[in-house]
């Protein structure tokens, strides 16, 4: 299960999600796209299915009993979609219980790949969906605004994980203690918080450590212009690894192309309309790297030959 998120709106999450879905389906994997960008769902337009008959809201409003029944087919064999096209207008403000219901249902679906198109920003709805699995793809552009938002998002995920793990272990008391000890251990510096927690309560610190180490994040730098430094992605990954000790793998740069605009306006998938652009090549490279992880996992799980 692959949540795909990014702090900043317009960074290209939907394009990446849709394109990855198409590439993986063409590689033979049964792939499901889920649009959980509540209030701003665009995935259906990007992949060229402008009027899906069903949407996620149908499940929330109990028009259909199971989430599986909201799945629609796409023009691409092997690629399926749960769209947000006809969502309720107030879907962005889900009740906690509804959110948990969706989370549970999604995790019960069985496909080779499930790609979740998350919304921008760092609301709990976004973050909780991001933590639905141990993998996650962060999408940023090479601008300081996007980078700032990405760091904000990563820290929020980190902090939320801490809260989650310590939830039943007196998180509030520990964090207050940490604040007192060092006034900088606030949300803006969750890594410092972890360090202090480890000191105060090594056992819980250990649990937390293990949970954080289980994350396998990936980073995509989208909309790279020619004048942008192609090294920004690897540098960001290095900072995350050094200071938050989170595994952040660099998935690739994706070139900026004006023609993406054309494809979106035509409501057709960019990969099909402009397959020989640098952007398309970059997207294919990303798709290959994502598929690699699956084949590596399958190899390690495969029974030993007699």
């Amino acid at each position: 299960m692959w949540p795909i998120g990014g702090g900043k709106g317009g960074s290209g999450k939907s394009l990446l999600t849709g394109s990855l879905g198409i590439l993986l389906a063409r590689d033979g994997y049964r792939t499901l796209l889920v649009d959980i960008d509540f209030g701003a769902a665009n995935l259906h337009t990007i992949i060229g299915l402008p009027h899906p008959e069903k949407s996620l809201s149908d499940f929330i409003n109990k028009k259909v009993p199971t989430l599986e029944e909201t799945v629609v087919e796409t023009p691409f064999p092997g690629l399926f979609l749960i769209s947000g096209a006809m969502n309720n207008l107030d879907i962005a403000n889900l009740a906690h219980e509804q959110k948990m219901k969706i989370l549970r249902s999604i995790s019960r679906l069985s496909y080779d790949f499930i790609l979740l198109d998350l919304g921008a920003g760092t609301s709990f709805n976004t973050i909780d969906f991001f933590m639905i699995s141990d993998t996650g793809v962060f999408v940023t552009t090479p601008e300081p605004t996007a980078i700032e938002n990405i760091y904000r998002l990563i820290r929020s995920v980190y902090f939320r994980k801490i809260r989650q793990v310590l939830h039943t272990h007196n998180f509030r008391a520990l964090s207050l203690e940490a604040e007192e000890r060092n006034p900088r251990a606030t949300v803006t510096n969750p890594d410092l918080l972890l360090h202090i927690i480890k000191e105060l309560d090594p056992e819980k610190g250990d649990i937390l450590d293990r949970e954080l180490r289980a994350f396998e994040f990936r980073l995509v730098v989208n909309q790279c212009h020619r004048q942008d430094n192609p090294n920004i992605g690897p540098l960001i990954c290095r900072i995350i690894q050094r200071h938050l000790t989170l595994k952040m793998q660099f998935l690739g740069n994706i070139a900026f192309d004006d023609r993406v605009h054309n494809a979106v306006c035509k409501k057709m998938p960019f990969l099909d309309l402009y397959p020989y652009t640098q952007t398309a090549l970059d997207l294919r490279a990303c798709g290959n790297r994502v598929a690699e992880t699956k084949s590596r996992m399958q190899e390690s799980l495969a029974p030993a030959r007699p």
Partner: protein
Amino acid sequence: MSYHTEQMHYELLEIPIDASPFEIRKAYEELFELYRDDSIAAYSFFSTAERMEIISALERAYLTLIDAAARRNYDAQLIERGLMEEGKGYQDKSREPVPMYNIRRSPFIDTTGPAIPPAAKKADPGDSPAAMIFKKDILAGEDLRKIRILSDVSLEQISLQSKFKIGLLQALEEDRFELLPPLAYLKGILKSYAKCIGIEADHVVQSYLRHMESSKGT
């Protein structure tokens, strides 16, 4: 972020304990790229104070490790604290490059005379022993050799300057006419020879040729 800066220098720079100076420098450059003022990748991640702290820690680590003496000192401290095993530090295995070309390949070696460049000689007063020999009408190879030695010039110097092989110059001095090239080239050799010693070339050429003529006759 103070705990971050308490790390061992090697950990901070992400290098192994036996890293070479080249690796140390490269690691420092890469990390500096990460944390410098206008690094877009570090934007908003650190406060300025935190970032400067990290940069000065990196600098300290780099300056300690890049200086051989300071590094030995630091390694000794680590060994004392039990953080490092003895003998696992960086061993400098670099060697001098092997000389590829040896001008002494020729078996005829003449090592008389110190290496004074001929231009440094003072002008020869007319009655020195070298000048006496020089005045002769016929100069044999042996004469040339005597003049050369008295003028403190070695065959190697002449060879280096004129680019003629030592063996050739030796043949000249030993009157081995059969080893010498045809006349046109021989004149050139004699001229260079004379120039290197600092005596008049024309006379040398003529006298030696006369010597060759008379020798052929015998």
